[in-house]
């Protein structure tokens, strides 16, 4: 099964319920803990995993995620070891796994090499925040599609609906990523009615599933998104849960599991 098929299938299995995509930086706080954190996400009710390759200059990210990137690099995480971790994770769980990466780590590994490896290992797609549609020299979209991998289009608050439609049409991804506010990741987003109703419009014009992220930190926000989006994306709040657990000497994987359960509204026993 291709990554694109697995993602589509996963949305179908949700039967209209809002999904949860959980994000963490691979190798934060170290590779072993990171492997347990991703497993814990999968077993606590996440519907998709977004795994970020650590990079020195994550320009779309706020302080929590930047700090996690730097900690992962200091702990010796490489692109190779990140991919090894994800291929082990793939053997444990069937939920879709998307790689989030800035361009330079992909270039340094080799674009074809990393896409081949991702497809071979059964990973499902890529999210690349510094790859705009009009710098298509690298041909990432076609190269992903040829391997059955999704390259997820990012839609900003000021992106017009006409442009959103064009971005979706140029992409084989089953879903788009709607960025819910300006700025970088982290700070909690106030979900105004205007922004929420835009999600419905985005779904209509693009004909794709809509995953909404940036500043989604709490169950109440996930509930607010439930009627308008197909998936909520949570990143910094989980990184913060890891950081708090570490500071208290607690198990970060358990802390992430508890937070994910809370976000999906599961009864915590």
């Amino acid at each position, binding site marked *: 099964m291709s990554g694109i098929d697995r993602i589509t299938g996963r949305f179908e299995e949700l039967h209209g319920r809002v999904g949860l995509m959980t994000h963490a930086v691979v190798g934060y706080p170290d590779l072993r803990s990171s492997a347990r954190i991703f497993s814990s996400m999968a077993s606590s009710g996440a519907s998709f995993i977004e795994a970020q390759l*650590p990079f020195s200059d994550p320009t779309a990210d706020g*302080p929590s995620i930047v700090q996690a990137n730097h900690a992962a690099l200091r702990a010796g995480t490489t692109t190779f070891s990140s991919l090894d971790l994800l291929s082990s994770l793939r053997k444990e769980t069937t939920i879709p796994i998307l790689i989030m990466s800035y361009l330079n780590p992909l270039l340094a590994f080799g674009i074809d090499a990393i896409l081949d490896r991702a497809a071979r290992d059964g990973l499902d797609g890529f999210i690349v925040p*510094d790859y*705009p549609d009009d710098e298509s020299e690298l041909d990432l979209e076609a190269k992903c599609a040829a391997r059955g991998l999704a390259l997820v289009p990012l839609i900003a608050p000021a992106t017009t609906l006409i442009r959103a439609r064009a971005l979706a049409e140029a992409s084989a991804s089953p879903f788009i990523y709607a960025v819910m506010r300006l*700025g970088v990741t982290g700070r909690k987003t106030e979900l105004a009615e205007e922004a929420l109703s835009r999600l419905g419009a985005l779904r209509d014009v693009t004909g794709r599933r809509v995953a909404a992220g940036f500043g989604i930190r709490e169950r109440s926000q996930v509930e607010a998104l439930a009627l308008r989006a197909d998936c909520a994306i949570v990143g910094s709040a989980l990184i913060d849960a890891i950081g708090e657990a570490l500071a208290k000497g607690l198990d970060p994987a358990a802390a992430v599991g508890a937070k994910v359960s809370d976000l999906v509204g599961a009864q915590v026993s």
Partner: protein
Amino acid sequence: MRHDERYFGDFGGRYIPEVLRPAFEELEAVWNSAKVDPAFAAELKRLSSSWVGRPTPLHFAQRLSAELGGRRLYLKLEGLAHTGAHKINNALGQALLAKRMGKRRLIAETGAGQHGLATAASAALLGLECEVFMGEIDMARQQPNVFGMRMYGASVTAVKEGTRTLTDAVNAAMKNWTERVSDTHYVLGSALGPHPYPTIVREFQSLIGSELKSQIMDAEGRLPDRIYACVGGGSNSIGTFSAFLGDSVELVGAEAGGRGPAPGDNAARVAGTGRVGIAQSYKSLFLQDDNGSLLATHSVSAGLDYAGLGPQLAHLAATGRVRFEAVLDDDALKAVARCARFEGFMPALESAHAVALALKEAPAMPVDSIIVVTISGRGDKDLFITAPHFDREAWLAFLEAEVTRLRGEAARQDKEAARQDKEAAR
């Protein structure tokens, strides 16, 4: 499809996140209209003369020339421009662009503090708000400029992430811009970053080279044989070189050789180990590791301490039109002293890299050679680096005495205030 207008050969582009797209479309549009508008040019020219103090002089370095066996050395003194470096040429130009766009707030990154100072001064001149992002390490080593920026009314925000120097200051400014695209213009300080910045910054800096060309023609009746400039991101060098790209003049860029060639010890991208990558929203040469993360860099001069290189210079390096050499920290420091003793002029540590290279290479040139070095800035800002380097004991004694004196003064003032309070209460 490739947007060729964004590229210099293989380098450049505009690798921005979707959130910044409207800001770049607006900037490109205003630039395209301003660059052909005679009124814009006239306003920039008026302020460049009355406020910046242009044209800056081309100084014949008589005593250094004699030291060089009669080879004729000229110094283009950008350090005599207002705020002490070439940075003002670009900052003022972009501040005028911001006004034209109706923005009310400027942000900037800064390394040595010269670009921050120039932006803060331009903001004050035009009545705009200003916030400058500066690495924590750079704030400590370029303290006089931090104070200057605050005097001009800017807020200076310490960047505590990553390298805590220029590379991370660029990230911080770019991130701030994604929050405030509607009312803010990002005044990028060097000829780097996503299109159209490399072009805008080069154009605002190109008067260095065009002035120099007519000044040397007046002085010598011919073009120089060789021109040197230091290269951080590349604004003073491309501003110097762009007027000469079509001439048979050898162009040489001095990069920071730092403590030596080991990774992390320098900022030599061309003369060192930079490799092609895409970071900070443009494609160029970057000092990076095998995983594509940017390396920490080192230079005694904050302004050259940067992991990337402006894309046009990367292209000119690839074609061989500009030669690049690395200059060690120690040689730059020596060049500051030599310039001060022989010419009565103290260059900035950044500019001293170019001086050091010229002084080293000149003796191998024919004796009738004409050499020009762009002195991008003056050395006042480096007081806290050069004073302890050249005169450690005296400087320490001064600082200690000064701290004691200021503490005593503050205590006396507190006591006096308490006495007055008591009196008023009575």
